[in-house]
């Protein structure tokens, strides 16, 4: 197949019939791939929405709250996976961006009285912009150095947010209340109960995942793949590295900001002490463990970040023993599963599918 994927359809020329047949085959394969891609996108959205609809039937109040936080963090993990899976860039400040988005959403919700969706988008927008600024050093730094620099940013945010705290209903720039009770973030009108809010968050997660998938399957995704291959290749193909790389950081920041706003809505308040630099590192680590090459990895990462500790708490496991367990699990996953748990699961799914599909389309083109 000698079709250039950047050009799309194959130009028809007056070549030999064999070449024409080859071209037609290539076009058919491309169309089939596009259909499959659309199908998998629909499947992904359907899966997430199904989870959102089904879980509140089975889960008690404790688990609904936990899984709501889980889904919110899956949104952030999707952003981290985008940066690392598509571009190979390590950002260790995504949890800080989550905090920044949550801060803006809380301030907008309490102080300006904006509708919830607008607060979420405002949080996402701020984190998008800050993410793009954080990504500017990425043009010069790579690998471990970028990781360290983003970790420094996360450390700086940790100190600032410890001093300023999060808005909780007061006035002024910081929005902190002094004489009276701390307020909870007002939830959207159609998602006031915990169960309804869980479904609401699932809808947001599906939307964000779809947004990322659409990016991946269009020009942006192809540009990112070229940038990952090497700057020379990308420049030669005419890709504007600055804009696409910065846009990736912006998108990841947007994911983190939305996640922060959703988390704030779920818990009601955010606390400055929960936004240490270590949290950003754990977010990255568990996203890698979940799997950065598939959307299910983001879901698994969210579960690892919130549901697994909650499970251990439910069983009464001592918090420090749980920490040891987590460390061991992290090491094990990193050593044995380079594409994460999602990668292993998809491998199993593919193997099963091949076993059942093998007799039928033996003649189909790969």
């Amino acid at each position: 197949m000698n079709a250039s994927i950047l050009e799309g359809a194959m130009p028809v020329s007056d070549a030999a019939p064999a070449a024409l047949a080859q071209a037609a085959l290539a076009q058919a394969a491309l169309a089939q791939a596009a259909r499959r891609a659309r199908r998998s996108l629909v499947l992904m959205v359907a899966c997430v929405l199904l989870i959102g609809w089904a879980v509140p039937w089975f889960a008690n109040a404790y688990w609904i709250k936990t899984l709501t936080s889980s889904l919110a963090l899956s949104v952030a993990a999707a952003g981290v996976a985008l940066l690392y899976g598509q571009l190979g860039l390590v950002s260790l400040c995504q949890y800080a961006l989550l905090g920044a988005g949550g801060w803006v959403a809380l301030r907008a919700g309490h102080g300006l009285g904006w509708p919830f969706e607008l607060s979420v988008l405002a949080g996402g927008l701020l984190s998008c912009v800050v993410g793009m600024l954080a990504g500017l050093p990425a043009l010069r730094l790579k690998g471990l150095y970028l990781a360290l620099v983003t970790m420094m940013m996360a450390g700086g945010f940790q100190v600032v947010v410890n001093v300023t705290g999060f808005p909780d209903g007061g006035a002024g720039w910081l929005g902190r209340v002094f004489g009276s009770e701390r307020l909870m973030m007002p939830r959207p009108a159609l998602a006031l109960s915990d169960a309804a809010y869980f479904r609401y968050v699932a809808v947001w997660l599906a939307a964000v995942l779809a947004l990322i998938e659409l990016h991946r399957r269009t020009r942006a995704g192809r540009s990112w793949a070229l940038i990952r291959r090497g700057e020379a290749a990308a420049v030669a193909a005419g890709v504007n590295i600055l804009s696409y790389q910065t846009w990736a950081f912006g998108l990841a920041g947007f994911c983190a900001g939305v996640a922060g706003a959703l988390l704030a809505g779920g818990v009601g308040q955010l606390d400055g002490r929960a936004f240490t630099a270590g949290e950003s590192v754990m977010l990255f680590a568990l996203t890698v463990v979940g799997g950065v090459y598939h959307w299910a990895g983001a879901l698994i990462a969210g579960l690892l970040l919130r549901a697994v500790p909650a499970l251990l708490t439910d069983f009464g496991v001592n918090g420090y023993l749980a920490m040891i367990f987590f460390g061991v699990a992290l090491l094990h996953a990193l050593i044995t599963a380079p594409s994460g748990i999602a990668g292993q699961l998809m491998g199993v799914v593919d193997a099963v599918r091949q076993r059942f599909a093998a007799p039928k389309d033996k003649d189909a083109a790969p």
Partner: protein
Amino acid sequence: MEDYLPFVISGLGLGAVYALSGVGLVVLYRSSGVLNFAFGAIGALGAYVAWTLLEADWPQGLAWCAAVLAAMALSLAYGRLLAPRLSHRDPTIRSIATLGFALVVVGFTEWTWGEQPRRLVLPTDGGALEFVLGEVEVRLTHTRALGLALAVLMMGGVGLLLSKTRVGLKMRALANDRDLSALLGIRVLGVDTVAWILSGAFAGVCGLLLANIVRLQATLLTFLVIPAFAAAIIGRLHSLPATVAGGIAIGVLEALAITVPGFAAFRTATPFLIALAMIVLYRAGTRSA
């Protein structure tokens, strides 16, 4: 001037902390290509071991040796059993894996020793260098002065090791390209062992000093690596003298930041701000690590 002297002196103590940790981190990075998140955790465990032995009335020297040995053993265990399995992955993943190890060590330490106010007292705490300027009196305990001296000594010693000895050369080669070094006939496992034992020894010594200068508390000592990374960044993950100078500078500036009225509440962000400023101001082409 009187207002600033106390903070310059106390900043030197803090700077020693950052310089020591920074050197330990850069040493391991240059000799194995891994940024060790578990550096603080391993040192903390060593310090707790020393505290327990001192409470049981062991002699000082033996307690310290036990602490350093414990740290070396832990470091070696990771370096020989776990690190080789990740040697084909990219450096960031290998560094994140040390985070997993750090969680295991911190969890174990906190679970075993629990939360009880403790203090690791070293014999050098008794004496101090006194600085008097007018009415202002500041003291730099011998422990902190020792910390500064050790940072410089380690810098010199390890610098010599890496640049002038065969073992150092092999370590640098291994960190640079593991597969190629193996092809050239360098005994990979042997050199790895040396590198991790060395790092463990540093972690043990740093742990003892940090537990004395800062606080004997495992989680805090573990996450003290994050400001220490700032010192490592100033040294560009390569130059030990720059790391030491950077660490001391960060410490002094963080302490001096108390005197700045609006900034005092944010002074713990000083290491991060300085590291970021260094990155922005001293861009040197594409830095690949």
